[in-house]
């Protein structure tokens, strides 16, 4: 019986949280009849247990580093071998620096297609059916595969991981990564970020082109720091050079799902919504009552941010 293979990633030597979201997706497909769930991870045997606990039935171990960003050619070798060993006809991975390259490489080598950045997956007539966002989030597309193997990357934070179940276990098998690596990685460096990581922040304050002035981001930072959160920006503001691209929230930037997202002078073009629509509570500060961001908010202040945000900072300080 065929099954699902997920490509797990690691961060600082541990299984990355997105891998557990992939396992949750694979388990849901298994419940719909998609067969057993295997996971491929690069590193040592200590990585297997957390994968079992979050839903894997079998774990394949590739050499450490073979699924790092930039090593998609090596990673494809490992992933293709694991897929064959696991007899998987569905392969899931994250829409990450790894998955963006690995998904298409695997698809072209297996003569099949890949659906990128899927929002949800289902089994329909024994085959995978995926929903993905397109046209900058203006439309959703539902797709199916003609080829035997169905490959998809999943948008981060699209699904919640399953709670860990310490009683779960399974088999561990080592896999060689034999892909020819023609791209030579010289160096990898982390982006400089000040304070809380955008994707992990419980509060995000973002500014858009409507701020009208790059120095207004100091105000955004003051508010986000006061709330213990991170500062983001829309694509338009980043393209203008007002804020670093690493802090961009949106279709071509980061996906965030904080408890509180404060959007200042952001109209809510689909490009931006794609990166923050999963926020639990949205607050808009915008002069335009018809702005899309105001419509999707829980609370909105329809006023000039230059008057509202400094007063909000003082009002929050006065609360304590």
């Amino acid at each position, binding site marked *: 019986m065929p099954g699902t293979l997920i490509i797990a990633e690691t961060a600082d030597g541990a299984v990355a949280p997105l891998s557990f979201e992939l396992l949750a997706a694979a388990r849901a497909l298994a419940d719909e009849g998609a067969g057993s769930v295997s996971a491929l991870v690069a590193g040592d045997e200590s990585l297997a247990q957390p994968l079992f606990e979050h839903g894997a039935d079998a774990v394949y171990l590739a050499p450490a580093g073979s699924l790092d*960003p930039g090593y998609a050619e090596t990673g494809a070798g490992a992933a293709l071998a694991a897929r064959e060993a696991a007899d998987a006809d569905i392969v899931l991975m994250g829409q990450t620096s790894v998955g963006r390259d690995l998904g298409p490489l695997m698809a072209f080598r297996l003569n099949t297609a890949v659906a990128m*950045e899927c929002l949800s997956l289902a089994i329909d007539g024994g085959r995978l059916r995926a929903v993905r966002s397109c046209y900058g989030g203006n439309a959703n*597309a539902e797709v199916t595969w003609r080829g035997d193997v169905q490959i998809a990357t999943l948008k981060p934070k699209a699904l919640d991981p399953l709670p860990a179940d310490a009683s779960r276990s399974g088999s561990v098998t080592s896999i060689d990564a034999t892909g020819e690596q023609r791209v030579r990685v*010289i160096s990898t460096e*982390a982006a400089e970020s000040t304070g809380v990581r955008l994707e992990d922040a419980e509060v995000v304050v973002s500014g858009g082109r409507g701020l009208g002035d790059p120095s207004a981001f100091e105000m955004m930072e003051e508010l986000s720091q006061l709330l213990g959160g991170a500062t983001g920006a829309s694509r338009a503001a980043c393209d203008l050079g007002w804020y670093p691209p690493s802090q961009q929230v949106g279709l071509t930037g980061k996906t965030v799902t904080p408890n509180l997202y404060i959007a200042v002078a952001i109209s809510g*073009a689909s490009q931006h919504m794609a990166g923050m629509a999963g926020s639990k509570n949205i607050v808009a500060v915008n002069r335009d009552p018809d702005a*899309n961001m105001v419509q999707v908010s829980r609370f909105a*202040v329809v006023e000039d941010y230059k*008057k*509202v945000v400094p007063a909000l900072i003082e009002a929050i300080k006065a609360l304590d």
Partner: protein
Amino acid sequence: MNIVVCVKQIPDPETPASQFAVDEAAKRVIPAQGIAPVVNPYDPQATEAALRLKDAAGEGKVTVISLGEDSARDAIKHALAMGADEGVLLSDPDFENIDNFQTATALARAIEKVGDVDLVLMGRASADWDMGVAPLGVAEQLGIPCVTIAKSMELDGDTLTVERVLDDGFQTVEVDTPAVVSISNEFGEPRYPQLRQIMLAAKKTVQVWSADDLELEDDEAGEDNRWLALEALYIPQVESNVEIIEGDSPEEQAQNLAHKLREAKLI
């Protein structure tokens, strides 16, 4: 040095949501009235990258290829006006509504037909379907390596050094040419076509190649032969439950918001 740049004409991604419409039966986007299609926003950066390499080398030829309907000529003309040397339009009824696997196959055949290509540059994704699959597909079909999401690059002999953007940082890689590189928005502002160049571009030739010219098999093109079948296309529904925070002054509105947020235990 022979460089190919692949470009695409798409519906304007800044089209307001209120003017965006879908024909659900035909599974197609209905073009918004009065909003012309535009060059995919990442593509002028790919053309810019090619022109910078050509300028640095002091020689070379930049060929721009686009697969699409007749409006794709505008994407080609834009690249020619920036300074690209020749254009090729891949046009065939069998190219309508094909998927990125099929597009990559057609582009790869066209690049082989151009011949002796050292470097293929493309935007990191097209902003309509936003998959970013075609650059890797073209590379696989040509049997050459691919580096994605480049923010800068330098060519020294046959060695290309590329700085690429990762989710959480940057990476420097080297690759031997021929190779495919996809270019990101971080590459920097593309040059703006000057009037004289626009006039010159009008005189540059744009060849038109069909599926037959590319010697594609019958099952390699055509909407019915998609590898990723489009089952449905629709506009997702959003409901509004917004509470507008009132007040006699912006200061009072801000205070009321602070209290609402505290009541809801959000701060």
